[in-house]
């Protein structure tokens, strides 16, 4: 599975389009992490717990998108975009979408 965020896969040609595929996940962090982040907020700096959490969630959203593309019979996803939105207090939605294609 080739994933790119440009319109084509360089060095290959697209032979078939399968349309839009997307994957999303909504995550909340647990109280312990929230408490630590609150303390860290006093002195500033990087919040490693949050970085880790968001990275993992984004990977999961990508996985779901790839799974959907695989079911359609695609072997590449082009023009992938990410977006983030906070749906509820303390929870964030990570969303990934792209176009599933077959390349040769």
């Amino acid at each position, binding site marked *: 599975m*080739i*994933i*790119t*965020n*440009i*319109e084509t*896969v*360089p*060095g290959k040609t697209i032979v078939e389009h399968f349309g839009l595929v997307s994957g999303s996940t909504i995550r909340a962090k647990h109280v312990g992490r*929230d408490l630590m*982040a*609150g303390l*860290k*907020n*006093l*002195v*500033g*700096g*990087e*919040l490693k717990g*949050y*970085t880790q959490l*968001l*990275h993992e969630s*984004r990977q999961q959203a*990508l996985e779901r998108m790839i799974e959907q593309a695989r079911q359609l019979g695609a072997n590449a996803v082009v023009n*992938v*975009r*990410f*977006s*983030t*939105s*906070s749906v509820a*207090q*303390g929870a*964030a939605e990570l969303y990934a979408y792209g176009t599933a294609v077959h390349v040769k």
Partner: protein
Amino acid sequence: MNNFLFFPTLIAMGYVVGTLVEKRHYRSIHEREKKFLYLPAVTMKTVTHPDQKVMSAELVCGSAVISIDYFKRLLASLRNIFGGTVKSYESLIDRARREALIRMKEMAGDSTVIVNVRIETSTIGRNANKKGVGCLEAMAYGTALTLEK
């Protein structure tokens, strides 16, 4: 009496530790940016290399969540009264973006170039729905191309 001492202590702690953390972070950012000079990240969609074939293309991304210290938050809220440039937030966003770019480059490994780089920022955390910025996330992603040598 306790309350009178509590806030000045927080502010002083925020100032001292926050400044130290920021200085150390900038030093490490400069160091790693020098290390990754061989790997350009561009916002163009394609690169033209007439006689080099593209071996592989893959999506790479990097992100960082940075929070502001208590002292700077106070400065920023004071700044809100008079208006003008909020320097303390500028350095916060700058750090987050550069850190995200560096992490993206780390993920790319020994690729030749990263094309179509996008940077996204979003505020997260408890204050995300309110006016105040608690902490913010910067995320950079692009396509890493490996060209034939």
